[in-house]
């Protein structure tokens, strides 16, 4: 295994059972996240992108597959020591900053909670210093530590959510729609903050989102997921310049661009899953171009490439 890969997901499937009915939310998904990159998972609601994030975080059990963190297997049963180490190395940033902070706790405690749980300080002064650094890193003044969450706006609360994750000194941050609950003017601040932290602290992000304009700006690579299956994965610019899979193209065409002229002349692409003839030719995960993967039969991928060429 390549040593610049920090997280490796192999053949991940997740099933949800209700009575005798079985629903496969994630179906044989494989991808790697490299150290220091931002990999985005995009897809519609119900596509399984959040479930993948939860499976990586050990919140949801896997039905099949394996997950490795820096070469070490981290799915399924882990002994207590490994479980603890994992919980420190992988942190999460939540979607809704209005719901993810304990309303009855002061910011000082919210940011320190992980430190308490893991005993990551030797003295009260050290803990305070860590909280202060984390707050400064996210652009808040250390004085906010003595206040309560309700005193802050959505953007500030999201900064607190990020500080709480940062204080643990994680290697991987899973961010599930961290921007979508924020306003346009605040969104740019938080995007800049996440990018700055990534650069300065060599963080790695798994970014789960549906807003493609944000995803394009923030990601190094993008994976597109449709009904539990990865259908395409490529460098961000390559994906926007030469989308191959018809679902990716439908998704990109549906994003409204902030330009009236483009919108007037726009043609929507509609994805028709029945267009694939997978009974005759089963699909496989193929590398169509270097670093650009797509799910399809050999014939299909050739056709999509030709279409991309002629566009």
């Amino acid at each position: 295994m390549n040593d610049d890969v920090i997280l490796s997901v192999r053949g991940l499937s997740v099933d949800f059972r209700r009575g005798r009915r079985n629903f496969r939310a994630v179906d044989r998904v494989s991808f790697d996240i490299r150290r220091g990159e931002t990999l985005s998972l995009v897809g519609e609601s119900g596509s399984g992108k959040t479930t993948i994030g939860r499976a990586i975080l050990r919140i949801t059990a896997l039905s099949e597959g394996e997950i490795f963190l820096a070469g070490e297997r981290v799915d399924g049963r882990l002994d207590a020591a490994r479980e603890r180490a994992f919980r420190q190395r992988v942190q999460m940033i939540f979607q809704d900053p209005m719901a993810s902070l304990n309303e009855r706790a002061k910011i000082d405690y919210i940011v320190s909670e992980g430190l308490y749980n893991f005993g990551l300080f030797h003295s009260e002064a050290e803990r305070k210093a860590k909280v202060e650094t984390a707050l400064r890193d996210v652009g808040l003044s250390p004085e906010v530590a003595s206040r309560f969450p309700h005193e802050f706006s959505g953007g500030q609360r999201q900064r607190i959510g990020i500080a709480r994750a940062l204080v643990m000194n994680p290697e991987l941050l899973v961010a599930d729609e961290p921007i979508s609950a924020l306003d346009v003017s605040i969104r740019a601040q938080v995007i800049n903050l996440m990018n700055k932290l990534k650069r300065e602290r060599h963080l790695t992000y798994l970014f789960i989102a549906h807003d493609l304009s944000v995803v394009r700006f923030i990601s190094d690579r993008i994976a597109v997921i449709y009904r539990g299956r990865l259908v395409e994965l490529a460098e961000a610019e390559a994906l926007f310049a030469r989308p191959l899979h018809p679902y990716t193209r439908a998704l990109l065409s549906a994003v409204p661009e902030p330009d009236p002229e483009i919108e007037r002349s726009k043609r929507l692409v509609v994805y028709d899953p029945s267009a694939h003839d997978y009974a005759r030719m089963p699909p496989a995960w193929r590398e169509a171009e270097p670093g650009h993967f797509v799910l399809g039969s050999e014939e299909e991928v050739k056709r999509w490439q030709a279409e991309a060429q002629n566009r």
Partner: protein
Amino acid sequence: MSETTILTAEGLEVSFTLRGRRLAALRGASLELCRGETLAVVGESGSGKSVFAKTFLGMLDKNGRIERGSIRFDGMDLAQFRSERDWLSVRGKRIAMVFQDPMTALNPLKTVGEQIRETAALHRGLDRKTSRTAALETLERVGIHDPELRYRQYPHEFSGGMRQRVVIAAAIACGPEILICDEPTTALDVTVQAQILDLIKSLQRDLGMSVLFITHDLGVVANIAQRVAVMYAGQVVEAGTVDEIFRDPRAPYTWALLASLPQLGIKGEELYAIKGTPPSLFKEIKGDAFAPRNPLALEVDFVAEPPEFDVSPTHWAKTWLLDPRAPRIEPPETLKRLRERLAADRRRGSAVAGGAKNAAQGGSR
């Protein structure tokens, strides 16, 4: 354009009383809605865009009231309406509303058809049989297949996009002159959003309605609107045709809003970000509300509120920069990039189809 306007709001001031404190939600907001157009009202949360729309329907919460200003509609002043009785002849009948969340806008205990039928029966005075036929026609009109079957189903049997179609059907069932849409696609996936936007556009065209479309998404604005009103801190700060707002914006807030679009960002560089947060509406605001966050603010911005300056017969902005005495200040460099970037994308074809079917107007889930 007074002969073509259908609704005019002028100098509207609305305040709410919250735990004994007064919050000024609208601080003299004005707009004109023309017959047969789609006007987008764009702003951040707290800018007052939803409150603004609610005043047109008499749907302010109990602790809120209109303190000043007028809303002219068909010779009436809606701002003077006091009783529910006044509103009955307007709300739902001549001015209808589509809400953001189709999950909560429908009654889960009633069939979908019944909910559409009752609006038709109530407002148009139709009997059971004719109102049922009307409801079936409306369902079909909003792109729901097999309306006979769907009529008898309950909201939980519909997907999010289909449910929003039902909400739209209930709103248009009595042929309103004005349709107010409050973020109707925010809760939906992009592909479904595109279909709903197409539906609203085709309904607007075919039924000749005027649409007031509230959103925070500038992409959606570019898609649906002919004219745009930009709101900040309880006021409309700029209004114009969609091309004027995107090509030649004048208010610093509009500049900042456009410049912070991630589409304009260059990878590896900072995205343009507006500093700070919107002002608290509990406090008195002096001068231009955006001045404290505006790096280009003039001294006068902190002292006096700017009036509305006309840029063209269809375009005005509330900023001192348009005063003849003001220094020449150019919009941020990044804004010029907007057009080039998007045009380049289009040439590369990331937004355009080859071979695949064109969008039919909705239909299957």
